[in-house]
């Protein structure tokens, strides 16, 4: 099915971004444009999800050039879901930012950078072309550099510089990977590669290419041992930006892993899944230990990003329909919950002027609603029932046990426990105790609370109403596990 709808999640943010450059000096207008664009994209994304559910994979051959020659957007359920959840959290984040960001930052191109970031993220989720994926990665990265440095504080600048260098190295690796793929197969289209790539298995080239791409996406997705850059980088920018990054950016890397591993790497190299299983366990464990070592709200959350990514990769590594569905469920859950946690941190910072746990205190008395929201989100992150994290974790546990992968299951349980402990540590220091003296009342609290509450409510809905999302993630998992059908659908689609 050729469908121009597929490109709208890229076009709308881009158009909005262009407009927002022009209106940058007028925050009120900018907010209105940005938020309406987001809501529009959200609508498109939901329409895409429904279209894919009803009619199967949606395609768009750009310039009317057929696959594998032109670039194709290949929208299966995973892509559509990722775009939809992206738009949900970004809308909430935007709402939050519109009442929390410093006026100076708002006027200095926060909104256009934000929209271009979304453009890159959505493009990466939708494309079916390896080099095009590289381009979208660059779009989202360069926007993230801009956002991360927004404010030009010393710490921020130096961490952004390091973040940039790490990602530039990763981009160079990406290009080397592409050179190897093109050199060996003469194609860049992922559907085409589904059929051509396995021929490389014999010579060992498939394995080499797999390692390179695993590292490239592992850097973006913050996998062991490649996540070293993340905690500091995410500490620098204003909390609301960290929130968007924490929820979204690493998930692009995880998405790329899900996509490429299922399409070519796992079918052609037997070591990929055991390797991922090991990496998943190490990522979970070291991430959560990192979180335990910290005394800052934002830093703890940053380490938990790492730790939680292990669970998603665990789903990929187990590689059964239930496991992949669980992994995708986990991605969606985590994007919502992690963003909402960062936003809570942002709201706390707004009120008390710090995120240092030792200096905080008494937020449960100062703003009980916020404490309630944190409690829900924190418990959801730890996988506590009946929130969204529990359903995802249950699926992973069950599939892990069914696949007799006992080690990873045991690690995941231990990490859940430590996550719970770590969340309660935050609660104990930031929300309990006597209220910190630095408390100030800042305007915009209701909007901030609304933004967080909407995400937390979604987490609750996905927990209690897991049956609503389950069919979608099951479709997504089934599509991932049948790359041949996916590839055929893309290659045989007719252009006008």
């Amino acid at each position, binding site marked *: 099915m050729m469908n121009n709808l597929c490109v709208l999640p890229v076009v709308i943010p881009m158009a909005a971004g262009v407009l927002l450059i022009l209106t940058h000096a007028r925050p009120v207008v900018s907010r209105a444009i940005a938020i309406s664009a987001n809501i529009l994209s959200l609508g498109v994304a939901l329409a895409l999800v429904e279209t894919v559910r009803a009619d199967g994979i949606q395609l768009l051959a750009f310039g009317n050039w057929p696959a594998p020659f032109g670039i194709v957007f290949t929208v299966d359920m995973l892509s559509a879901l990722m775009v939809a959840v992206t738009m949900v959290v970004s809308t909430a984040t935007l709402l939050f930012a519109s009442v929390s960001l410093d006026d100076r930052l708002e006027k200095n191109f926060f909104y256009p950078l934000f929209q271009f970031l979304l453009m890159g993220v959505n493009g990466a989720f939708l494309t079916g072309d390896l080099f095009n994926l590289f381009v979208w990665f660059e779009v989202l990265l360069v926007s993230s550099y801009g956002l991360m440095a927004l404010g030009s504080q010393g710490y921020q600048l*130096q961490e952004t*510089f390091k973040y*940039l260098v790490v990602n*530039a190295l990763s981009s160079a690796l990406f*290009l080397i990977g*592409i*050179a*190897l793929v*093109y050199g060996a197969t003469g194609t*860049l289209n992922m559907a085409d590669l589904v059929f051509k790539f396995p021929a490389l298995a014999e010579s060992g080239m498939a394995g080499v290419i797999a390692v390179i791409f695993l590292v490239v996406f592992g850097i973006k997705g913050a996998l062991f041992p490649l996540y070293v850059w993340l905690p500091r980088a995410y500490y620098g920018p204003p909390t609301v930006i960290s929130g968007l990054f924490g929820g979204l950016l690493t998930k692009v890397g995880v998405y790329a892993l899900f996509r490429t591993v299922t399409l070519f790497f796992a079918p052609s190299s037997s070591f990929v899944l055991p390797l991922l299983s090991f990496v998943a366990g190490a990522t979970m464990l070291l991430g959560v230990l990192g979180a335990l070592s910290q005394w800052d709200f934002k830093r703890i959350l940053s380490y938990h990003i790492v730790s939680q990514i292990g669970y998603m990769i665990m789903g990929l590594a187990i590689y059964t329909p239930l496991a992949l569905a669980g992994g995708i469920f986990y991605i969606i859950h985590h994007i919502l919950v992690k963003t909402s946690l960062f936003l809570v941190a942002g709201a706390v910072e707004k009120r008390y002027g710090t995120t240092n746990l030792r200096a905080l205190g008494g937020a449960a008395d100062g703003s009980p609603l916020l404490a309630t929201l944190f409690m829900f989100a924190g418990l959801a992150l730890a996988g506590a029932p009946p929130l969204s994290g529990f359903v995802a974790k249950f699926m992973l546990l069950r599939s892990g046990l069914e696949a007799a992968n006992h080690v990873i299951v045991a690690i995941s349980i231990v990490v859940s426990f430590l996550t719970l402990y770590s969340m309660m540590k935050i609660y104990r220091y930031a929300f309990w105790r006597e209220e910190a003296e630095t408390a100030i009342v800042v305007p915009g609290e209701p909007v901030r609370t609304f933004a967080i509450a909407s995400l937390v409510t979604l987490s609750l809905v996905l927990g209690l109403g897991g049956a609503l999302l389950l069919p979608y993630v099951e479709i997504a998992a089934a599509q991932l596990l049948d790359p041949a059908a996916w590839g055929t659908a893309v290659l045989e689609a007719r252009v006008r």
Partner: protein
Amino acid sequence: MHFAVLTVVAVFITCGVYLLLDRTLLRVIIGLGLLSNGVNLALLASGGLGAGAAPILGHGSAAIVDPLPQALILTAIVIGFGVTALMLTLAFASYQSQLSDDLEDLHGRLDDE
């Protein structure tokens, strides 16, 4: 031809990586520049280093070289250019606020203590 070109790729990447692992701001940036030059050349080689005319049609019917890697390299060069500009800006701004070009001085804090 491929031996010569591959040697250049190897040397560019070797020097690039070596500089990238330095602790001086400028050398890191130069390292990345060399690295991306090497990678671009690698992309060119992936299309094959055959004898052929430039991919501009209409001047006789001689065999032409693979045009696709050239297009990819062009895109990569442009993106690299944009990123380099941003990196220079960051290096500049970072220096202005920290007054050091030694990256080990810029290691940041592990936490707030």
